[in-house]
C-alpha cells in the first residue's frame, strides 16, 4: 500500500529559488546525499537523514549556474555548468568553485545526465549528445545541430537498459511535440512525432518516464489535467523514418488544468505516480499518489504554502519546494501481505505451481479461424489473460500488423492497433480489422467498435460481438439498436456470418405437430386454477393466422444471425437494463417476437436445443425475454400490436409451468425408484454370496 510519510524540510536556510524554482535535485554517489542546485549561484550537498547540508559551493558573483550539478558516479566528482558553456568539475575537498577544473565548451549545454553505472552524458541545446570523457578530451570540438530551428528541448531523461545507455528528450515546436530516442552505444537517434489526438490545443505540462524491457513508457501531464501514456519502443523498427506515436489516456483529471501554479508528475514505480498540483482550480496544492493500474488515489498531502511545480523522486524520497524551503516527503510502498491478513502464509517455493506467463506463445496458436470461433470458451475468463490470433495469408498491411501482433506483448499490440486506427482508413480496412480482431480484446481497441457503430457496419459489429469477450453493455445495446433498426435492403448487401442461424422453413411440417402437442399439454393444465378465465378462453380459440405467425421467423435470416450474436454476447444484467430502455417500442416487440419464435423452436425437441452449428441456448433466450420485459414492460403493455404477443407468451409460460409441475411429480416417483435400488445393495447381517476371482 502506497503511503506518504511525515514531511520534513531539509534546512532552514532559504534557498535563492527564482520564480522558476530550483534548478535541480540530483543524487550523489552516496545514498542519502543529494545535490541541490538553486537557480542562482549555489550548489548544496544535503544529507537527508541528518536534515542538514554537508557542503555548499557557489560560483562567482556575475556568473550563473545554468545546468543542475550532477555527480559523476564513476569518479565521485561533481559536474556543473555555469553561463551555458563553462563546465566545472570538483569534489568534496574543494572549497572554491573558481579554483576547480574548468572547461569551456563550444556550444550551450542543456543538461548533464548522470546515472549509476555509466559515464555522464552532456546534452546540448541543439540536441547533440556527448560522453563527458570524450568531451573533456577536446572541449572545443564542434557540436552538431540535431534539432531544427525554433525547436526547444523541454524535458530529458537518461536510462540504462541492459547496460546500454538510452537517452530520451522531448522537444516542442509550435505546439507540436517530438520525442528523440538516442541509443548512445549504437549512436542511433530516432525521432518520433507525438500525436496529441483530438484535443489539439492541449499543452503538455510535465513529463516522466519509466522503462521496461522493450518500451519507454512516457507519461505526460496535459493542461487538461489528464495523464497520458505513450509507449516508445527502445529499439525502433525503422530508425530512418519519421514515426508517430499515439498517446492513451491513463488517468482522467488528476489536477485542475487551469491552475495558476505549475504541475508536476513523476513515476514512483510500475503502478504508482506522484502528481503535484491543485486538484481543483481554487484549492490548495496537493501531492497525490495515484495507482495507475487500479486508477485509484492512494494518498495525498496538502501543501498549503504552494510549490514551484517541481518534483524529484530518488530512492524513497520525494523532493519539492514547499514555500521557500526544500521539503522531503518519504514515500513507502510496502507490499501488504494478503496472506497475513487472511492467515495463509504462502509457501515461498511451491513446486506444484508455476507462474502463468503473461505472454502468449505465438508459435502455437491455440485457436484458429472458425475453429476458434466455435470453441465454447468462457469469454469473461479470457479477459486480459490470453490473446489468440489466427494467421491467414493476407494483404501486406494487415500482414504487417498481424505479424507485429503475433510477435509482441500485449502492450505493444495495443500500441500498434492504436496507431493503425489513428491513421487514415485504408481501402482494405475491413479485411485487416476482420483478421486482426480475432482474438483481441475490446479494451485493447475501444475505438474500433465506436467507428463500426458510427458507420453501421453490422458485419464488423457481428465479428466484434463474436470475438471480444469484454464489450461494455452500452455498446452491446447500441449494436442491438442498429441490428433491429437497419433496413432489410441494406442487410441484403452485407456479408454476415450465418452459422448461428438454421433455416427454420425446412421443417415446417414438424411445426404442425408441435402445435398439436401444445394443445395436448394444455389438457394437463387445470383451468380452474386460472384467475384470468376469459383471457384463457380467448387464448384457447387459436386463430389460424397466429399459428402461422409463430411458425415463421419474424425476421430475415441475416438479421437473425446478427441478433444471435447479441444473444451470445456476455453481459451483466445491472448494466444492461438501463440501456435496454432506450430501444424504441416497435423494435422491442420485434425482438420479443423473434425470441418467442426461438423459444417455440427450442421446445420442439426433448433436449430443448436449437438446430445449427452455434445456436443460442435456451437459457440465453429466456434471459433475454426476461430482460426485455423487465426493461420495457410498461411500454410494451400499452402497445396494441404487442398485445397478442404478450398473451401468447403468457399462455406459453403458463402451459410450461404446468408441464414442469407434472414433471416434478414424475421425478418424485423416480426418486423412490432410486431408493429401492439402494436398498437392494444394502444387505442384511448375513448372506452367502458367490464370488469369482479372475
Amino acid at each position: 500500500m502506497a503511503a506518504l510519510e511525515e514531511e520534513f524540510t531539509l534546512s532552514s536556510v532559504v534557498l535563492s529559488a527564482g520564480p522558476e524554482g530550483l534548478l535541480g535535485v540530483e543524487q550523489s554517489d552516496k545514498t542519502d546525499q543529494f545535490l541541490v542546485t538553486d537557480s542562482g549561484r549555489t550548489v548544496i550537498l544535503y544529507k537527508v537523514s541528518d536534515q542538514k547540508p554537508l557542503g555548499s559551493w557557489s560560483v562567482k558573483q556575475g556568473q550563473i549556474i545554468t545546468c543542475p550539478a550532477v555527480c559523476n558516479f564513476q569518479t565521485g566528482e561533481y559536474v556543473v555548468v555555469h553561463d551555458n558553456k563553462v563546465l566545472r568539475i570538483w569534489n568534496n575537498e574543494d572549497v572554491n568553485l573558481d579554483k576547480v577544473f574548468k572547461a569551456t565548451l563550444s556550444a550551450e549545454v542543456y543538461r548533464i545526465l548522470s546515472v549509476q553505472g555509466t559515464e555522464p552524458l552532456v546534452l546540448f541545446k541543439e540536441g547533440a549528445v556527448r560522453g563527458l570523457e570524450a568531451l573533456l578530451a577536446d572541449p572545443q570540438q564542434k557540436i552538431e545541430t540535431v534539432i531544427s530551428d525554433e525547436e526547444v528541448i523541454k524535458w530529458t531523461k537518461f536510462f540504462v537498459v541492459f547496460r546500454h545507455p538510452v537517452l530520451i528528450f522531448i522537444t516542442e515546436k509550435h505546439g507540436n511535440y517530438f520525442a528523440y530516442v538516442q541509443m548512445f552505444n549504437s549512436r542511433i537517434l530516432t525521432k518520433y512525432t507525438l500525436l496529441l489526438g483530438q484535443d489539439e490545443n492541449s499543452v503538455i505540462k510535465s513529463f516522466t518516464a519509466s522503462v521496461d524491457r522493450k518500451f519507454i513508457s512516457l507519461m505526460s501531464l496535459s493542461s487538461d489535467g489528464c495523464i497520458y501514456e505513450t509507449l516508445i519502443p527502445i529499439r525502433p523498427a525503422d530508425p530512418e523514418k519519421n514515426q508517430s506515436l499515439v498517446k492513451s489516456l491513463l488517468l482522467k483529471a488528476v489536477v485542475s488544468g487551469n491552475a495558476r501554479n505549475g504541475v508536476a508528475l513523476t513515476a514512483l514505480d510500475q503502478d504508482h505516480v506522484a502528481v503535484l498540483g491543485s486538484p481543483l482550480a481554487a484549492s490548495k496544492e496537493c501531492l497525490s499518489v495515484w495507482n495507475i493500474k487500479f486508477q485509484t488515489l492512494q494518498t495525498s498531502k496538502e501543501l498549503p504554502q504552494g510549490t514551484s511545480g517541481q518534483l524529484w523522486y530518488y530512492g524513497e524520497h520525494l523532493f519539492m519546494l514547499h514555500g521557500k524551503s526544500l521539503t522531503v516527503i518519504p514515500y513507502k510502498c510496502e507490499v501488504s501481505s494478503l496472506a497475513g491478513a487472511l492467515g495463509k502464509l504462502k509457501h515461498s517455493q511451491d513446486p506444484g505451481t508455476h507462474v502463468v506467463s503473461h505472454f502468449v506463445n505465438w508459435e502455437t496458436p491455440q485457436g484458429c479461424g472458425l475453429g476458434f470461433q466455435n470453441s465454447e470458451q468462457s469469454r469473461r475468463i479470457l479477459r486480459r489473460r490470453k490473446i489468440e490470433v489466427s494467421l491467414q495469408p493476407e494483404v501486406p498491411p494487415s500482414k504487417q500488423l498481424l505479424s507485429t501482433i503475433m510477435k509482441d506483448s500485449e502492450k505493444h499490440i495495443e500500441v500498434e492497433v492504436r496507431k493503425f486506427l489513428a491513421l487514415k482508413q485504408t481501402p482494405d480496412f475491413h479485411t485487416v480489422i476482420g483478421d486482426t480482431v480475432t482474438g483481441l480484446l475490446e479494451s485493447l481497441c475501444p475505438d474500433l467498435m465506436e467507428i463500426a457503430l458510427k458507420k453501421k457496419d453490422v458485419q464488423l459489429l457481428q465479428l466484434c460481438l463474436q470475438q471480444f469477450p469484454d464489450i461494455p453493455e452500452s455498446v452491446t445495446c447500441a449494436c442491438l439498436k442498429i441490428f433491429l433498426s437497419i433496413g432489410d435492403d441494406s442487410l441484403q448487401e452485407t456479408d454476415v456470418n450465418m452459422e448461428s442461424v438454421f433455416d427454420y422453413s425446412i421443417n415446417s411440417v414438424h411445426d404442425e405437430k408441435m402445435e398439436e402437442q401444445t394443445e395436448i399439454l394444455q389438457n394437463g393444465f387445470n383451468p380452474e386454477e386460472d384467475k384470468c378465465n376469459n383471457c384463457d378462453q380467448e387464448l384457447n380459440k387459436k386463430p389460424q393466422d397466429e399459428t402461422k405467425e409463430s411458425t415463421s421467423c419474424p425476421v430475415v435470416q441475416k438479421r437473425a444471425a446478427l441478433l444471435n450474436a447479441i444473444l451470445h454476447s456476455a453481459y451483466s444484467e445491472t448494466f444492461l437494463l438501463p440501456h435496454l430502455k432506450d430501444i424504441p417500442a416497435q423494435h422491442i416487440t420485434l425482438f420479443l417476437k423473434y425470441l418467442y419464435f426461438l423459444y417455440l423452436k427450442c421446445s420442439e425437441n426433448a433436449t430443448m436445443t436449437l438446430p445449427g452449428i452455434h445456436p443460442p441456448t435456451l437459457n440465453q433466450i429466456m434471459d433475454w425475454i426476461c430482460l426485455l420485459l423487465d426493461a420495457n414492460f410498461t411500454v410494451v403493455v400499452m402497445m396494441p400490436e404487442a398485445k397478442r404477443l404478450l398473451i401468447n407468451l403468457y399462455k406459453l409460460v403458463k402451459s410450461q409451468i404446468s408441464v414442469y409441475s407434472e414433471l416434478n411429480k414424475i421425478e418424485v416417483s423416480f426418486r423412490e425408484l432410486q431408493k429401492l435400488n439402494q436398498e437392494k445393495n444394502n444387505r442384511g447381517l448375513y448372506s452367502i454370496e458367490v464370488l469369482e476371482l479372475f
Partner: protein
Amino acid sequence: MGEFKVHRVRFFNYVPSGIRCVAYNNQSNRLAVSRTDGTVEIYNLSANYFQEKFFPGHESRATEALCWAEGQRLFSAGLNGEIMEYDLQALNIKYAMDAFGGPIWSMAASPSGSQLLVGCEDGSVKLFQITPDKIQFERNFDRQKSRILSLSWHPSGTHIAAGSIDYISVFDVKSGSAVHKMIVDRQYMGVSKRKCIVWGVAFLSDGTIISVDSAGKVQFWDSATGTLVKSHLIANADVQSIAVADQEDSFVVGTAEGTVFHFQLVPVTSNSSEKQWVRTKPFQHHTHDVRTVAHSPTALISGGTDTHLVFRPLMEKVEVKNYDAALRKITFPHRCLISCSKKRQLLLFQFAHHLELWRLGSTVATGKNGDTLPLSKNADHLLHLKTKGPENIICSCISPCGSWIAYSTVSRFFLYRLNYEHDNISLKRVSKMPAFLRSALQILFSEDSTKLFVASNQGALHIVQLSGGSFKHLHAFQPQSVEAMCLLAVSPDGNWLAASGTSAGVHVYNVKQLKLHCTVPAYNFPVTAMAIAPNTNNLVIAHSDQQVFEYSIPDKQYTDWSRTVQKQGFHHLWLQRDTPITHISFHPKRPMHILLHDAYMFCIIDKSLPLPNDKTLLYNPFPPTNESDVIRRRTAHAFKISKIYKPLLFMDLLDERTLVAVERPLDDIIAQLPPPIKKKKFGT
C-alpha cells in the same frame, strides 16, 4: 482363479472405544493413544502408522491423561487417582501409584522429562520426581479451589499454567505458589453460562499462555501481567483440546463439534518480523467431540468420541508429495479379534468384556458371480461368554475342531471345553490352571487341536497338551529377549512354531525336539501377520511396510519366490495401501496360493503366475470378456485382489470352495455411538 461361496458376515457387533488421550513422542516418532475403556495403544508412525503394541483396558481405569517422560517412558493417570507407568518391552503395567488427590484430571511431564506434574480433583497440583525405576512424590503446590483440568509447563521449567474451572493459575515451580490467577469469562455469546471449564492450556516460551475452554474460546494470556491479550471465539460448543508444535509456530485445537482448527504464527506483513497468531485451517474429520489432539512436526493428530484416530499431514511441512502426505484415518485395531473353527464352521468374536460364538449358516443352492444364494440355514448365535472381573480380554482363540475356547485377561487365563450334542452345546471350564499361565498375549491351537500354544507376557512360550478335557503342560521355551511375543503361527503338521515380537526377528521352534530351530533375520518393520504353509512349511511373513516374505523353515532361508519378489519389488499400489495385513491363510489343495487381507481388500497370491510390474493394472475387478485367452494370460498376474468386502476384519478359507468374510460397516458403528452435538443445517 476360481469360484467361491462367501459367507458374508456383518453381525460382529464390534464398536471401538472412543479415544481419550493421545501423546506424541518426537524421539521415537511413536504415538500413544488411550481409549475410554482404559486401553492404551502405541502406534509407530515410522512403520507406516502400525499399531505395534497395546495394553488392555480395565473398567475402573479411565485414563484422563497420558504423557511421555524421561525419553521414552510412558505414564498415564486417571479417575481412579493412580499414576501408572507402562513397560513397553514386556507389554504390562510396571506399577500404579496413588497420588492421594482424588481423581486425576491432568498430567504433564517437565520439559527436561525428569518431573511429572498431576492435577487432581481436590484442586491440588502434585509434583513427582521420576526415578530410574519409579516415581517419587516430591511436593504439593498451593491448593486451588476446584479441580485442575489442564496443566502445561513453561519450556524453561520455571513456571506452570494450570487450567481449572473459571480460572487459570500460574505457579512458580520453585516456591509452589500461585503467581497469577486469570479469570476466564463465563459469557458465551452474551449468555452467562454456569461455569467455564478450561479444558486445555499451553505455556509458550515467550510467556504467552493459550487456553481453550467450554465457552468455545481460544484465548491468549500474558503470564507476566496476568492479562488477556486476545480471544478467538471458534465454536458454539466446548473447545476440548490443544497441542502446540515444538517450534511454537503452530498449534491445533479440537472442538466438541468435531472440528479441528489449525492456528499458525504468521507475519503481519510479508518480510516483517512482527508475527501474530492466525486461525488458518479448519478440518472436519470427526463427527463427535475431538477429545484430544497432538502436533507432530509434520501432522496434526486428533481423536475423539467417534473412535477414529486421524492424521492430517501439514502440506507445507511435507517435503515430498508422496503417499505419506495423505490423510489417514485409523478406526480398527491392527490385530485379529476373530478366530474360526473350520471343521464346525464356527466364528469366535472377541469383545472387550465378552466372547461370542456363532455358527455359520448354509445353503444348497449354487449361482454365478455376484449372486446372493438363498439360505437353507441361517447363522446361529451359540454362546455369549462374559468375563469375570473388570479387565479387558487380551486375546482369544477357538480350536480348529471347535471343542476348545481359550482367552486371557491381564491376570487370568481361561480354557473351556465345548461339547456339542445335536443342537445343544455345553461349556465346561478347565480349572486349575497352572500359575505360569496367568496371562497370555497370544493363544493358538495346533491344527489337530491337540496342542495349545501360549505366549505369556513374561516372554516365555508354553506348549500344553490337550486330550479329552484334560490338560498337561509339555514345555516352555524361555524368552530369547526381554521383548514380549505377540504373534504366533504353527505349521499344519504341528512340527513348527513361529513367534514374533514387535521389533526383533521371528523365532522358529521345533515342537517335536522342543528347541529353537532358527531365527528369521530381523527386518526394519514390525511383523503384522504370519502363517506357515502346509506341506512346504514355508513361513509367510507380512510386515507393516507391506512387504511379504516367504521363508523356508526346513531350509532356513528365504524361498526363491520370495527372492524374486524382492528383486522385482511389489507393485507401487500394493505398497501404498494404508492398512496392514492382519491375517494370512492357505488353500488346502493349492500350495501355490497365499490368501491375505487388510481392512480394505483381500488378495490371493498365485505364486505360479508372473508378478505385476508398475505398468500392469494391479486391481482389475472386471472379468475378462470376449478377449482371447492369449491376452488374458498375458495380463494375468499373481495378485488376485477383491475389494468387495470392506471394512474387512477377518477372512479365511473354510474349505476349498468356501470363504468367510467378516465385515464391520462404519455406518453400523456410528449408529451405536452417542449422538453428536446437533448442528443446525440449512433446510433441516
